């Protein structure tokens, strides 16, 4: 965030139109977007999924994904129109003049090669420096990105290092040929908040150090606020607005931009209940020989929402699996509505199964793609309640109304629904069993902010109307604030804290809760800088 950025133009994209082919026809993905970027400047590109931000970022390299094509527009990079170059000419620019950092580092490294070889492969193609020089430089990059054991980490294979480390190594790989422009495509979206902070600060400092220009693509406004000098908001393939970061945050002009952080403004008053729907006591659980839960005890008050928070690997999803009986516990017991539940799914009665339902993170994979909405929602009605025929159909329509959809959806297949609609159908499917307890496993994390807000509001409304109890598993603190009454903090398979929301979210914190809460990006461009100063002091 240096202020003395040069005003020399590096990239100028004019009137970009890109079409994509899917479902047997061409769709417009970008409808005439402009973009300018100066040397050493960082531009944030934000929007929801389907806004065309990733397509725009890739187009800045003159690249389109298979099935997409540039209809018209100019991409002037250093005075060369990338849209007019052949594949062969573009390959000379890719990886060396412009490099790319992908969202999922785990999937973007070739599993068959060592990290060092992949880090220097693009720079090696330039044939300016010898392999030895490049390797030394890579080790220095690893060091400045604060990777542990920088000297030797390059000898490992991708599966041998963690996701956060891989993301930093990919940044080193992008930086290795000293490009003029780096495209960061959602580089921290797949990471835990605590890891995200480290990766963000590493990326920011290295981009600053070499004065590299960057386009930073994300759907998280708080993240982009830490990285970018300027922010451009996209929606439906068109520009909504563009402004300097500070102006954008303090004074967003468009209604849409404001709505991007609407979840963060959603707050639910907390309530509790001495009457417990579910209590799990001293649970131990393991996958094979590796133990993942240690002496976990949690109480869930009736008709309330308990959020279980923690980073990946903390055991929050495993706890859900134990409660549902998918993973029988080794030790401890589960008391559901005053009665002991058998650990094994097969030994639970149909009634017990009916009363506990689960909604998953990815609605795409949680539904049979060949079943219509009617079949998806109708089956649990038939299975648990034995209702058939006309009565069943009426019930399905009633459920659709409850989730704010209507009977026109009955014959649709999951592929004909949007992400938010799919998740609503999954909620209706859980409700069809008329359950007392619904476990929501990261139900909003695959959705856009606005859609998230809708789903959270719906869940709250359903709780008020039907009195269901929720266990809400999430790593997103904004969601926790929006929906929960009580919070359980988990870390490495143990419960760190359990209590009312107001107690957990206010000091004094145990160390881990403090780390977790302070790592959640805030809508303040100085947040990361302040946080790092505070942590280093």
């Amino acid at each position, binding site marked *: 965030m240096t202020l003395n950025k040069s005003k020399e133009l590096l990239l100028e994209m004019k009137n970009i139109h890109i079409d994509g082919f899917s479902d047997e026809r061409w769709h417009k993905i970008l409808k005439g977007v402009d973009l300018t970027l100066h040397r050493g400047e960082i531009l944030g590109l934000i929007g929801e999924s389907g806004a065309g931000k990733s397509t725009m970022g890739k187009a800045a390299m003159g*690249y389109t994904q298979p099935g997409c094509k540039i209809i018209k527009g100019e991409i002037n990079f250093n005075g060369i129109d990338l849209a007019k170059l052949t594949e062969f000419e573009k390959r000379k620019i*890719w990886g060396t003049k412009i490099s790319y950092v992908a969202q999922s580092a785990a*999937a973007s490294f*070739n599993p*068959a090669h060592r990290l060092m070889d992949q880090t220097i492969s693009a720079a090696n193609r330039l044939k300016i420096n010898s392999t030895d020089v490049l390797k030394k430089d890579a080790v220095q990059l690893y060091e400045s990105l604060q990777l542990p054991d920088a000297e030797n980490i390059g000898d490992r*294979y991708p599966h041998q290092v963690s996701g956060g480390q891989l993301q930093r190594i990919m940044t080193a790989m992008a930086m290795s040929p000293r490009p003029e422009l780096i495209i960061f495509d959602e580089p921290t979206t797949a990471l835990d908040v605590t890891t995200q902070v480290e990766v963000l600060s590493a990326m920011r400092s290295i981009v600053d150090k070499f004065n590299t220009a960057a386009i930073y693509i994300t759907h998280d406004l708080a993240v982009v606020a830490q990285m970018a000098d300027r922010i451009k908001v996209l929606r439906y393939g068109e520009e909504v607005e563009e402004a300097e970061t500070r102006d954008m945050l303090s004074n967003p002009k468009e209604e849409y931009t404001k709505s991007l952080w609407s979840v963060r403004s959603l707050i639910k008053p907390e309530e509790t209940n001495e009457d417990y729907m579910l209590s799990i006591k001293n649970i131990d659980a393991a996958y094979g020989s590796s133990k993942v839960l240690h002496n976990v005890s949690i109480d869930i008050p009736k008709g309330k929402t308990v959020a279980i928070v923690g980073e990946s690997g903390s055991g929050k999803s495993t706890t859900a699996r134990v409660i549902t009986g998918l993973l029988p516990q080794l030790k401890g017991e589960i008391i559901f509505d005053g009665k002991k539940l058998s650990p094994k799914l097969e030994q639970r009665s149909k009634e017990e199964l009916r009363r506990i339902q689960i909604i998953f993170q990815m609605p795409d994979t949680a539904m049979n793609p060949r079943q219509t909405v009617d079949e998806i929602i109708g089956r649990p009605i038939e299975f648990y309640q034995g209702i058939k025929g006309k009565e069943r159909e009426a019930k399905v329509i009633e459920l659709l109304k409850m989730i704010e959809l209507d009977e026109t959806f009955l014959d649709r297949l999951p592929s004909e629904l949007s992400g938010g609609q799919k998740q609503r159908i999954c909620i209706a499917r859980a409700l069809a069993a008329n359950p007392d307890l619904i476990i929501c496993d990261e139900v909003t994390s695959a959705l856009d902010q606005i859609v998230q807000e809708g789903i959270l509001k719906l869940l709250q409304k359903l709780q008020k109307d039907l009195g269901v109890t929720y266990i809400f598993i999430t790593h997103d603190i904004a969601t926790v604030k929006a929906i929960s009454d009580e919070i359980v903090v988990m870390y490495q398979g143990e419960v760190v804290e359990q209590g009312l929301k107001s107690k957990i979210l206010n000091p004094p914190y145990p160390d881990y809760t403090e780390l977790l809460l302070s790592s959640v990006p805030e809508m303040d461009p100085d947040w990361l800088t302040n946080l790092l100063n505070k942590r280093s002091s």
Partner: protein
Amino acid sequence: MLRLSLGLVTVFAFSVIIFSTFSFLPGDFATEILGQSATKSAVKALRAELGLDKPPVTRYFDWLGNVFQGDFGSSFSGRSKVQGDQGDRSREVVGLIVPRLKNTLFLTGVAAMLAIPLSLILGISAALYRNSYYDRSATGVSLVTVSSPEFFTAYIFILLLATLFPVFPTISNVDEASTLAERFYRTALPVFTLTLITMGHMMRMTRSAIINILSSEYIEMAKLSGASRYEVIVKHALPNAWAPISQVIAINLAYMLIGSVVVEYVFNYQGIGRLMVGSVYNRDLPVVQACALIFASTYVILNLIADLIGIISNPRLLYPK
């Protein structure tokens, strides 16, 4: 190690199945050789001589014990029929099989050396130019070759390359004295047949393995870091495709060996497949058992090799966390 012992168990199980199957077949060598008019005492005498009168379980363990010592027993046919004849003309199974096994290995080896590189190249190039006319015709033709039975393919080759255009001989009789060039010339048609019947499958599987990998994110990443088309395929896609490809190759080599039974018969080639067919016809148990056991172990060995390649080519398995 686990795989190796599992392989051994498989071969052992095979030996039991092979042995019992042939034991339960109606008729035996004695009735077959002496004809229908044979007296009961003659049949009984011959059975006693061959050891066929012992209970099957005893015979099985006798046989197995000998196999472990490399002795597959003596062939039933060609043995001395006259009691007291000093010149024992019975032939050792090993002596009978080894030259024919060499012939079969030559045949399938040549076919494999032709089929594997060809199908890899065709498969990779079809994946590269996916949905082009080249890709479509290659996959289409391969489907035809996979679905035609080997004797049909063999006769088509005979019709085209031996009858209409007499380039190669229809009968592939080779002996110890044949030179290498002669062998190549004479075995051309069976080699072509075996190549064609296995190539289609290998090519299609290579194509789909590569296409599968080409859609993964690290391939896009490689493209975006400026890797050329050749580099993407050879350096980034292929190393990750060896495991599925080697599995398919193993299955097809085994299939080739089994296909050679029919093909050798059609072209009258003195290989192990033809020997086996002849021996089944004669109820010549020791030979049939030995052949079947060889087929089974080849299959197991090929699969072991494929598994090994899968492990070596995958750093995840080679270097645990």
